[in-house]
């Protein structure tokens, strides 16, 4: 059994907050072009692994609800990663629940309705990656730089998302036996670079306060709410603008922090009380409105160790990926291994949501 194809996904309903993302466009921040890219690189990597991609391919980042897709030409192998599931409506109207953490191969005419990204961010990957034309070396959507098509705006009904040609020697699908889990301890930061714009009490308060993520958030940043933080003086609430980065926590005169995310502007004029470490950046994607967040200060050595440990843990977890045979297909690979070719062909029924 083999499957290969060059598919197209058509957007029936864009839903809220779904954008095309890859690793972003480093190297253009001196031009005022944000880094952009997936908010949770770990989940995006997991989604790509589930469809056999190398890891850098463009995926659909889902931050809300209501995205509906149709396979215009197929087959298209796809998979979800994160706290999300989908309904797969086959062309004969048969409905199948498609959970995250496993791949499925959809045929032309099949539809897919994505559920809610429960934690605020999830990913849909397709085998070979979404093949939109690149802009400045990336397929990440960003609406302010005049990028063409869906890279420069939100998805619209009728948009076509081309999928790369892919080849698979057998019809087995991929899955992870256990999901990649999110941490829920405090988010780790390196203090500064403008820690000297805040009195010691404000620095202590910043680290003790239970902050709440507000509804004022998008891919540029998240406004937090809590007891306002004081600056050393009124003048200290402004700085001569300098560079920011995703994870930067700015505190404007209001005293309410703003965490910058991937699409944030490249420079800013508010003092930066702290910056989230690289290992914890993916967690910022999941600070839905109303969620509580605390910060913990670490040093550069701890930040480095956290990143290395995470890298190792992810590599190890990616190796737990296993192939399985969806019901309705014959596992030729297993048959050959068991020397049963001359016997009766029978597809094993599979437990789970795939018939």
């Amino acid at each position, binding site marked *: 059994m083999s499957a290969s194809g060059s598919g197209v996904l058509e957007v029936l309903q864009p839903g809220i907050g779904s954008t095309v993302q890859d690793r972003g466009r480093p190297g253009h921040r*001196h031009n*005022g072009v944000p880094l952009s890219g997936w908010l949770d690189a770990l989940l995006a990597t997991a989604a790509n692994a589930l469809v056999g991609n190398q890891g850098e391919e463009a995926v659909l980042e889902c931050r809300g609800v209501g995205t509906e897709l149709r396979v215009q030409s197929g087959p298209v192998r796809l998979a979800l990663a994160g706290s999300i599931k989908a309904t797969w409506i086959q062309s004969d109207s048969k409905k199948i629940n498609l959970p995250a953490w496993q791949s499925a191969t959809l045929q032309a005419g099949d539809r897919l309705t994505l559920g809610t990204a429960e934690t605020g961010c999830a990913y849909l990957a397709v085998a070979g990656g979404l093949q939109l034309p690149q802009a400045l070396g990336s397929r990440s959507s960003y609406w302010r*730089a005049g990028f063409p098509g869906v890279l420069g705006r939100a998805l619209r009904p009728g948009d076509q998302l081309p999928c790369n040609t892919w080849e698979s020697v057998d019809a087995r699908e991929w899955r992870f036996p256990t999901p990649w889990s999110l941490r829920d301890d405090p988010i780790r930061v390196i203090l500064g670079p403008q820690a000297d714009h805040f009195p010691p009490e404000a620095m202590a308060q910043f680290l003790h306060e239970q902050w709440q993520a507000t509804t004022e958030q998008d891919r540029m940043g998240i406004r937090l709410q809590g007891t306002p933080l004081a600056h050393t003086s009124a003048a200290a609430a402004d700085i001569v603008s300098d560079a920011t980065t995703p994870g930067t926590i700015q505190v404007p005169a209001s005293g309410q922090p703003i965490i910058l995310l991937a699409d944030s*502007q490249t420079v800013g004029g508010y003092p930066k009380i702290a910056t989230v470490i690289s290992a914890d950046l993916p967690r910022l994607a999941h600070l839905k409105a109303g969620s509580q967040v605390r910060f913990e200060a670490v040093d*550069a050595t701890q930040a480095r160790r956290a990143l290395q440990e995470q890298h190792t843990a992810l590599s190890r977890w990616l190796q737990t990926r296993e192939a399985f045979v969806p019901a309705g297909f014959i596992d030729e690979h297993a048959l050959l291994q068991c020397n049963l070719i001359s016997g009766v062909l029978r597809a094993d029924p599979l437990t789970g949501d795939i018939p």
Partner: protein
Amino acid sequence: MQTQSQNTPRLLALGDAAWTVEFGCDISVATHARVMGLDQQVAQQRQHNALFATVTDVVPAFASITVHFNPLATDSEALGQQLLALAHEDNAHILKGRTWHLPVCFDPAFAPDLSRLAQAKALTEDDVIQRLLATPFQVYMIGFQPGFPYMGGLPAELTLPRLATPRARVPAQSLAVAGEMCAVYPWDSPGGWNLLGRTPVRLFDLQHTHQPAMLAAGDVVRWHAVTLDDYQHLLPQCQSGTIARESFLQEADAA
């Protein structure tokens, strides 16, 4: 000759994936010359120094420069110390940006704040325009939006605070001033600066894949006035790229 900015450079961690080297907290040609000197030093190091191989972005600002890098593949501490050592060298003399001569149209439709600025400063509108045209503007930083230049040098007699209530939509390519800064909005966007004119030139163009932003930190911009007719004639040619960017460079820089 400019006076040398003497502050000792400071190395600041912007998280675990970027260093900021700060030369001061003022906006001045002298401080910015040091920023641009380090910018050029870093560009040279990236050519041959393995320690700089995993640097992804170098962002000069008014009084500081930030070097972003891949934290997993970089000896961050060593990189920071090298940056600081380079910052201590006297690099300011290296600075040499390009000089641009850009057209701007002061038609009243493009300059909703011109008369207010003139009145506030007890000048005629023509006085304001002549002072703008006589000023070489220094590009300190590109930011806020792709291609948005923060340009310094606005004469003190033209300074005005930004609007108390920003406009919901500033038309793209508006020339604007606030405080001692001049800028051009490359995109339609909200904005609070005072709008004095409009340029037909596109400040950000994806056709230039390596340098989509036309202006770079360290460049100098001089404005020359064009009539509404000229503006309308130039606009489509600038938008389509029929007029090359380079044609707006001072001759020596274009060569």
